[in-house]
């Protein structure tokens, strides 16, 4: 069993130290590098917290959408991309709504880890 606190909690704590104790002491032209590092830590923290669930959900959805239980994330997304390129979600196509809903759902998951501010701004 891993020792506590786990990675996501460690990252959160470390970020707080950087924000409160280190950032204010840096000259203006050095702050950017630290802010980038803190952003990277925040993304890693959110990925750790979300665990494997988002990708497992995406794979389930892909297998259902493409009706093939043998798909991996890589092969499923490749096939989905090909379908979209060939017009499977053009206006009037029967699967347009389902395919768009899938892209939105996966997009929300990706944003929740990479940049949740976008979702917060839309909600607010």
């Amino acid at each position, binding site marked *: 069993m891993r020792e506590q606190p786990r990675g996501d909690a460690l990252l959160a704590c470390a970020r707080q130290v950087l924000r409160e104790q280190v950032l204010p002491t840096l000259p203006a032209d050095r702050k950017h590098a630290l802010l980038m590092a803190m*952003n*990277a830590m925040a993304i890693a923290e959110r990925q750790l917290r979300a665990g494997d669930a988002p990708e497992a959900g995406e794979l389930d959805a892909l297998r259902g959408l493409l009706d093939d239980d043998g798909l991996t994330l890589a092969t499923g997304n490749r096939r989905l991309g090909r379908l979209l390129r060939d017009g499977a979600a*053009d206006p009037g196509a029967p699967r347009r709504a389902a395919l768009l809903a899938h892209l939105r759902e996966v997009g929300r998951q990706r944003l929740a880890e990479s940049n949740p501010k976008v979702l917060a701004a839309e909600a607010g």
Partner: protein
Amino acid sequence: MEDKTRKAVERFVAQAAGASSVVVTEARQLSGGAVQENWLVDLEIGGGPHAGPLACVLRSDSPTAGVAISHGRAQEFALLKTVFEAGVTVPEPLWLCDDRELIGRPFFLMRRIGGTAAGHVLAKDPRYGGDRVELAERLGRELARIHSVRPPQPALGFLPWYEEAPALHLVARHRAFLDAHHTAYPALEWGLRWLERHAPARGLVSLCHRDFRTGNYMVDEAGLTGILDWEFAGWSDPLEDIGWFCAKCWRFGNVAAEAGGIGAREDFYRGYEGESGRTIDREAVRYWEAMAHMNWAIIAVQQAERHCSGEEESLLLALTGHIVPELEWEILNMTEND
């Protein structure tokens, strides 16, 4: 700067400038771009037409330059010369050294301009860039001058030529990249299909900067001092640059200022229309704003890959990959209704 490099630069400039003596009085590296290095270089030139002090920037290829579609220094120098002669405000290109023997890679010198280019600063702090109505208009005029450069241009023979509609050319290029990439991007495929279905026919084709946005021009407190970063320039529909400049993804958080986060869209358009004598098709720009998000998403994937592949370890490149989801999201917002 290493002593050997400094000496080589002095010898090179003495010959290029027809001077009897050249001394590098100051040299330090500026924050580098992803594909090139910039050095601040002060020269003291003795004799010849440039006699006296000269404030320059020395640009060389980055030791690990990787983005395949960007130009090397020799080509960038040719571009700068062409647009400088077309009246675009750019740092005056001075001398190009194509010989790798001198400092290990090609480089050129250009006259140094003052100011700041930082996009976040410009979008947040109105003290930079002078009056914002004037700045937006001025940028419109500058872009119109860039677009006054029309093919054929023998000095720009290295720019790829193509006969199809510029929008479809881009769609094909992006698809070819995605097909060769290790990971598929279904949301980008959705967007590319929309861009294909709505692609405008080939019309006027001009020189385009292709990275004309806030962050890539310099301003001081009085206004514009120069347009930078020409490494992505190519032949295209002029609206590609207009869409890129106005796209939401390049407003640095100042979303209401639709002209690059620094001004009003109509001010920018007025400058462009006055200089070019052509009316901008407002509706057509919307298409090119969707294309802007696509272009940026593809570049972001490529930048991240430079880090992921081990070619160039960089936190900036790594984080650029994490911009892709918000670009995909905006593409869906712009394309879901038709």
